Structures are given as structure tokens and as C-alpha cells.
């Protein structure tokens, strides 16, 4: 579904991604790991069209379409979802209102009628249960006054509502205690299917105990320098990144 070829991107003139190649197929889970500053979050920002970043080279194909030509909202409509590392607070905007707008915009894009209020509420009730959010959610403002754990659960809730074809989880584990981590991971697993795919960006192996990756990639200095199976994550957990850094810096990778 997703083909990234030699992707280069920069922010404020500074090149962060220096030739990323990645192919994701439906049903797969890809983990992207790497030390701080390696470009992990930049990759998610570029895929979702964050205007702060400039693509300076390469291609991104999503189901045969040139993703880079789409506006951020149309990428969302095409089925790309980002679970933000730092979910944004929007004071006064109720979750129900926010989600209903999002869903109906997507339906409009697909040429469908807006969802009825009853169906929407039913859907919301069903999906919030996946991440243990209570019925106050609908009448709370977007992320306003949410605890760290609630914010991340809220991201997964939105993912459940929007049923994306590709979900990018950007450090969804950061700031979570073990119970919240489990809730979030279980939520992600329940949403998995043969039709959709997930890219998990993380520092730690911990999350991968719960969300089993098919492939693990190491991003370093703006490139994917190593790819392996789940065992690579374990190895990284044990040995750290230094050995990879060394090899890259000595031009061995």
C-alpha cells in the first residue's frame, strides 16, 4: 500500500530525512526505531503533510497515488492516520463535535451522506470502549484537561473511529504507565486487520511486546540503516544503538 522511495525532507533548511526507503503491505506492522534525532517523527510528519517540513526529494506512493500531492486533510481522507506524540489541546471544541466533523468530512470525500446522529453516537460508544474511555468523553473538549494516558487513549479512540488504512503511531508509548500501555496496545491490536497496516515509531522494545511487528527498521541519520524481524528490537534493547551508529559512521552500513 505504501512505497517510500529515496525520501528527502528538511525543516527550516536543515535536511533531516536523507533517503528513506520503505515498503508497507496491508496487514503488516512495521516498527521504526532509532536514537533521538534520527528523523523518526519527521518521517511521520512528512507522510501526513505537516507544512512545517519540506520534501526535497523522493517519492511516496499510497495505493498507487502520489501521496505528496495531497493536502493533509485529503491524506487523512485517503486513510492515513497519525497518533500524535503530543496530542494537541483544542479548548472548548467538544470531542463529539470534533469527531463528527472529521467523520463527515471523510464521508463527503468518499461521496457518502453524513452519518446520522444516532449512528454516530452508537459508533462513538462502541469505539471508546476499546480504549476504556468513559461516556464523559463526548462532552469533553479535545484533549483539554486530559491526563497523559487519556490523551494517548484518545488518539487510539480517534483511530478506531476513522478506520484508517495506514496508522502511524508516533511514540504512543511515551509517558504511559504499564497499565495504560497495555490498554493502548490492546486497542491497536483489536483494530488490526488484513486490510490495514501500522507503523509503530518507538524508542523502546517495551511496546513491541504488545504490538508484534513483522519488520523492525532502524532509522539513523535520516536513513533506514538496518531492517530485521522482531528479534532486532530485542537485540537493540540489549545492546543499544552504539554498535549500529559505529557501523554507519564507518560506512559499513
Amino acid at each position, binding site marked *: 500500500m505504501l512505497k517510500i522511495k529515496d525520501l528527502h525532507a528538511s525543516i527550516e533548511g536543515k535536511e533531516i530525512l536523507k533517503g528513506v526507503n520503505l515498503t508497507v503491505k496491508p496487514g503488516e506492522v512495521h516498527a521504526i526505531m532509532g536514537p533521538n534525532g534520527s528523523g523518526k517523527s519527521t518521517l511521520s510528519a512528512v507522510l*501526513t*503533510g*505537516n*507544512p*512545517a517540513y519540506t520534501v526535497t526529494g523522493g517519492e511516496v506512493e499510497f495505493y498507487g497515488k502520489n501521496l505528496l500531492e495531497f*493536502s*493533509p*486533510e485529503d*491524506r*487523512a*481522507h485517503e486513510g492515513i*492516520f*497519525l497518533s*500524535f506524540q503530543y*496530542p*494537541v*489541546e*483544542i*479548548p*472548548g*471544541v*467538544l470531542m*463529539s*463535535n*470534533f*469527531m*463528527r*466533523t*472529521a467523520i*463527515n*468530512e*471523510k464521508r463527503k*470525500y468518499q461521496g457518502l451522506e*453524513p452519518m446520522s*446522529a*444516532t449512528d*454516530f*453516537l452508537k459508533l462513538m*460508544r462502541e469505539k471508546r470502549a476499546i480504549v476504556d474511555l468513559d*461516556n*464523559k468523553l*463526548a*462532552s469533553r*473538549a*479535545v484533549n483539554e484537561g486530559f491526563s497523559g494516558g487519556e490523551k494517548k487513549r484518545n488518539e487510539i479512540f*480517534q483511530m478506531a473511529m*476513522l478506520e484508517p488504512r495506514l496508522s502511524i503511531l508516533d511514540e504512543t508509548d511515551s509517558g504511559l504507565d504499564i497499565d495504560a500501555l497495555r490498554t493502548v496496545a490492546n486497542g491497536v491490536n483489536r483494530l488490526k486487520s488484513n486490510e490495514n497496516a501500522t507503523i509503530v515509531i518507538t524508542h523502546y522494545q517495551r511496546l513491541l511486546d504488545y504490538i508484534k511487528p513483522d519488520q523492525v527498521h532502524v532509522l539513523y541519520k535520516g536513513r533506514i540503516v538496518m531492517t530485521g524481524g522482531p528479534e532486532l528490537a530485542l537485540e537493540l534493547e540489549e545492546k543499544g544503538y552504539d554498535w549500529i551508529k559505529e557501523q554507519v559512521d564507518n560506512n559499513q552500513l
Partner: protein
Amino acid sequence: MPPILVPLTRKAVSLQIISTVVRNVRIERKFLTILNMNENNNIKKKQDEESIINQAATEEYRYGFVSDFETDVIPKGLNEDVVRRISQLKNEPEWLLEFRLKAFRHWQTMTLPKWGKVNMPDIDFQAISYYAAPQTKTSDKKEIDPELKKTFDKLGIPLEEQKRLSGMAVDAVVDSVSVHTSYRERLAELGVIFCSISEAVKDYPDLVKKYMGSVVPYTDNFFAALNSAVFSDGSFVYIPKGVRCPMELSSYFRINAAQTGQFERTLIVADDDSYVSYLEGCTAPMRDENQLHAAIVEIIVEERAEVKYSTVQNWYPGDKDGKGGIYNLVTKRGICRGDHSKLSWTQVETGSAITWKYPSTILKGNNTVGEFYSVALTRNYQMADTGTKMIHLGKNSRSTIVSKGISAGHSENSYRGMVKVAPNATNCRNYTQCDSLLLSDTSGAHTFPVIEVGNDSSIVEHEATTSKINEDQIFYCNQRGISTEDAVGLIVNGYARDVMRKLPMEFAVEAQRLLSVSLEGSVG
């Protein structure tokens, strides 16, 4: 008809009025059954609002249709004869003419105030006509003139009672006269008086005499003096002791004839232990020249009574270059006369080229409560200088002020407020929150708060913030599939939510839609 000093000129004018309130009410009703099933009633409402906002997303000022009305207009200019003429046209008693003349003579000694943070051009008061009356074909108020009915139907305000799904009584004021008031008989059974002020002068002279000018004397300010001299019509409300008015009362004001001013007066009296919620909406045609609207609203709240006064102001704001638009220069003031009484002002201001108004409350009784909730949106070259005064005279009186300014384009948006606690008014409490949201680099947001506290036992708080819409918020919305324009609408409505939720349901929907629509093209 009394003899006329100056011949009437007749001309056809265009007519356009605001307010889709009633249509929205209908939508609310339709969803009522669903509402009951909700986990949270508010959700439903919000969602309907949202869909309406979306429907409306392509329009600007949409009250621009023209309907042919014969209108009687007195020639331009202002002098004692004109004042007498207006009084005579309205067949007024001598005491009212005296009141007008005193006001007029006082007005002549005054000069146009310049202290507002608005760029007020000199207004040529001789270039304005002070009276314009649309001619209706029926003299009986119970029957509705077909042309009038057509116009109001087009605006979404059916005047026939049976068509109205919600219990809301309407007084429709076109230019200088009240053209129709609905539900009067039903209200009369409860002793509630709801009629035009002209009728009140005839039918309830004692009440009008007692209260008119008691809160806003004609000496109050330049525009109050002018209004007192030439006011033409407006609404009168009297809620007798112990009566909870069973329906929302509302007035629709619209300016219609060209080169005229509208000077209406509203007088609301809530006697002991009574309650009323009153709504006000306004629109005007799109014209290149500016037009003047100088109203007075007086509210008297007696012991343990409560009045809720809501405004959605959508006068024509002028075009994108600042040409045309209404000068909205209004004096609104209420007094909580009796102990334990409460007055709550809520306003959503999106229209007018210049807005200059400070709905204020004198908290005279002990344990009284005053509230002011305001959203003022300015864009293009609009200027708004608005706020409130809370004058604490009674002990243990409390007031809350929440003001949300939103500035876009090249507009100037000011909050001007005063909180005054008299020395004897012990244990008073005020909380003021004053927020500004800037949507452009070329707009201005200003606050001019004044606080005077005359004793040690009172607590006055003032909080203020200024912010811009944050790019992270926009991108977050974008990532969920919401376009930037819709995102801004959502964010601004969220920002204004504390105020919007104070509006009666019938108005909240309209107000939300208005905010989003008004913002179109303002961001970038």
C-alpha cells in the same frame, strides 16, 4: 391621522431582515426524540449546530433580497419640528412630547463623543431621516400584511403563531415601527405585557411614565439624548409579580429604508419574583453608505426577579474594504433594584461597521447578581468597542464578566469595562475574564478595564489572555480530515463556547453558524 406639518414622501425601499432562529428551532425539534437517547444531551445540539454550520459554509451576508414596500419617510434633517412631527405621527400624549423636547434641547448642547477606540467619522445628523414607516395594507394588528409576511417568511421568521413550533413570541420592528407582535393574547392571560413601546405609551402610560428614562436618563450620553428625542418604536415588556414567562420573548430589529436611522427603545420591567428571557436580533441591507442605529435598552429587575437578555447582532458590517455598514451606537443598562434579583446579558456581536455598546448593570439591591457574557467578532475594517459596567451598590452583590474578542482582517476590537464597588457595598465579588484571539497580523485587540473598589471586604478578580490560533491545532484538525477553514471555525467556536452556551438554544445555533460564516476568508 393628525394634521401633518411636513408632507410625507413615499418611496419603495428594499427590505431584508435577519434571523433564521425559527428555522433552527424546527431543526432542534426534529432531533428532540434523538436527544432523549443521548448519553449527553449537549452532544446532539452541538452536532446539529455543526451540520448547520457546514450547510452555511458557502454564504456571506445572505439577507440581501429585496421586497417592495411602500414606506413613509419624513424628510432628512433634525430640528424641534421634526421631534414634534414624530410625536404627532405616533399620536403621543403631551408628556412624551415634553420628554422628547427636553432630550432634544439637551442633545443640542452636546458633542459627538470621541473617546472610543474607534475611528468615528463625523456624522451629519441633518443628512438622516428620523422616521420611516413601512406601509402595511392591514390596520388590524392581528392580521399580517401579505408583503410583510412574505418578507419574514423568506427570513425564516414566520409571524403566524400556528407555524411556530417553539413557544417564542416575536415583536418585529421594521425601521421606525413595530409591525407585528405575536402571542399577545396568550401572554396577556398571564398578565404579561409584550407589545410595541408605542402601544404601551397608549395602553399603559403609567408604567411607561414610571420607568422610561429611569435607568438611562436622556442626559446620559450623546446618543441616549438623541434617542430620547427621536425614538420611534421598540418593545415593551412587563412581567407581573410571581410570573415566570413561559416563552422566550424576542424582537427583530431591522433597518430597511435608505438614509434613515433606527432609534428604538426597549423597556423591560420584571416585577418581584418574576422571570423572563428576552432575545434580540438584527440585520440591515447592504448599502454603500453608513447608517445609524442608536438604541436604548432599559431593564428594571425587582426583588428576586431574573431577566436574561440575549443579543445576536448581525447588522450589515460593510464590505471587505470597509465601505458601508451600520454604526451601532447603543446604550443598554439594567438595574437590579430589588434584593436577590439577577440580570444576565449575553451578546454575540458579528455585524456593524462600528459597534459601541456597554450593556451594564447597576447592582442596587443586596445579594444581587449581574452577568455579562460577550463574543465580539470583527473582521475586514470593522471596529468594535464593547464591554460592560458592573456597579455594585448593594451588599453581597456578585458579578461575572466573560468577554471573548476575535479580531481578523484589519479590524479593531476593544474590551472596555468598569467594575465599581461602592464603599457601603461590602462583601461584593467580581470575576472578570477577558480574552482576545487574533486571527491576523493586521488586526488589533485592546482591553481597557477600570476597577474601583471602595471597601476591603470585596474581592475583584481580572484575568486576561491574548492568543493566536496555533498552527499545531490546525494541523491536528487537518490530520483528522478537517480543512483549515473548518478547523478555524471549530476552534473559534470552541474559544467562544463559554459564552455561546449561555445563549438560549434557539439562538445558540444561529450564533454558532454566524461565527463560522463570518470567518470565511478571514484567515490566511
